[in-house]
């Protein structure tokens, strides 16, 4: 995949930037330029406003994948889920920081910024959202990374700048 092709989607893949119809208030992710819900959807043209998703949601369905998508071979078995966000849109993404056998429909999760895959040794590294379980009150803090870690690409660039 060309660098530009992934880079142009970073506002969505890094920050969950969606859109909201200013006529019917339905939220979409990824953003749409017309609203499928509005009865005469012409009325929504140029009225779709940017909308930031919180990343909170719950697992609607999931699969433990053993035969990986390209670039995910090193991650098997991994969980791919449909996550129903609190704002409405459903997102497809991996569920991490939990054993595959503990994932279930209804599990509360939140989006977390992670490395998705890399294109070989010299290729582009793709970053974006994955989902991690929300810690229930009273639950002992698990040994897992910060919920919104610094994007690794930026951290690496900072390292290079200060070196």
């Amino acid at each position: 995949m060309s660098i530009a092709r992934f880079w142009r989607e970073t506002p969505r893949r890094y920050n969950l930037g969606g859109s909201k119809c200013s006529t019917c208030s339905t939220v979409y992710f990824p953003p749409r330029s017309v609203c499928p819900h509005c009865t005469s959807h012409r009325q929504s043209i140029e009225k779709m406003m940017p909308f930031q998703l919180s990343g909170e949601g719950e697992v609607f369905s999931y699969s433990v994948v053993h035969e990986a998508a390209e670039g995910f071979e090193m991650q098997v078995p991994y969980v791919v889920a449909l996550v129903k966000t609190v704002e409405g849109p459903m997102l497809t993404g991996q569920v991490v920081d939990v054993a595959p056998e503990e994932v279930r429909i209804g599990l509360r999760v939140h989006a977390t910024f992670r490395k998705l895959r890399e294109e070989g040794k010299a290729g582009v590294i793709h970053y974006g959202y994955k989902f991690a379980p929300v810690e229930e009150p009273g639950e002992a803090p698990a040994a897992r990374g910060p919920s919104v870690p610094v994007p690794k690409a930026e951290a690496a660039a900072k390292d290079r700048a200060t070196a």
Partner: protein
Amino acid sequence: MREVAVLGVGQTKFGELWDRSFREIGIEAGLEALVDAKLSSSDLNALYLGNMASGTLIDQEHIAPLILDYAGLAGRHLPSVRIEGGGASGSLALHQGYLAVASGLYDYVVVGGAEKLTDVPDATASEITSSAADHEWEVVFGATLPALWALLARRHMHQYGTTREQLAQVPVHAHAMAARNPNAHYRNKLTLEQVLGAGPVAEPLGMLDCAPFSDGAAAVVLGPLETARKHTDTPIRIAASEVACDTMALQHREDITTLASTVEAARRAFGRARRAPPDVRVAEIHDGYSISALVALEDLGFVEKGRAGAEFSSGTFGPGGRTVVNPSGGLKAQGRPFGAVGVAQVVEIVRQLRGEAKDRQVPGAALGLTHDVGGTGATSVVHLLERGN
């Protein structure tokens, strides 16, 4: 609009056809259909070719004139057009051929479907065919086509109590049927234990829940029903040819246990033909994954929503059942050459309606249905075919 009939059918063997090229199989199926229709190539007006991914699978785009050329028809400069709609490419091509003849613009057209999946490694074929899903918002995040169908399966199990064993009955049935089909990719019988014990692909789906990557081609010749008797004693009328589309990604659907595109295509098809699901004696439906077949039976109206697992396990759709499903062995066992599937489904139904299906003949078949799906149901195509009078 004119009534349209299928006048001839042809199909190659499906499977790992390592000794045969894309153009060879495409032409074999087309010529067989032409001979079957008792037509000569000078009678033809156009060619429509369903194919999903020749550009990435065999590094060849622009395949419609290629097949026309090697079929010996380039000198007649016929229009030859490729149609793409993921796994539903073949039946979309048929829909275009149907429109052309029904409109009166063309009298005789060949509709072919062909795909060559085994010239690339399995992992590459998997990556290429997963592009029938939404690459940017599903595949980039680790989903594959089987993983997306697994999401659907898990949800169906959650909402309706469909069991893993009920899913496993689908491939067992497919292989039992394909044992009587000499063109099938797999003719070995499968047991429930084998399906349940096969390695996982995307849980709850295992390796034997998934249709294989096959090479193969199929073709039909269409013409006006009014003159069909000149070509065949058993013209098969296309009673309906309906296409319906839906959101590209599974994630944008309210209910993922149903393919709204299939529901709508079936509703339109039965409406146009003024028939109902119980009238259908034989059906070739999409069983790319075990769950696909169960969802299709519900969406096509053969069984109440949520009941397909139980009904299928009780033999409702097996030999001697109310509606016999996938006598060819379906995508699972006859094979899955993506762009050829929809045309091959029609070839099987035509043979059934003509009474030429030999030892897999469904007795008394007068009305048949085909159901073809692209991706996870962004496209569904339903055809109803019946014996002409």
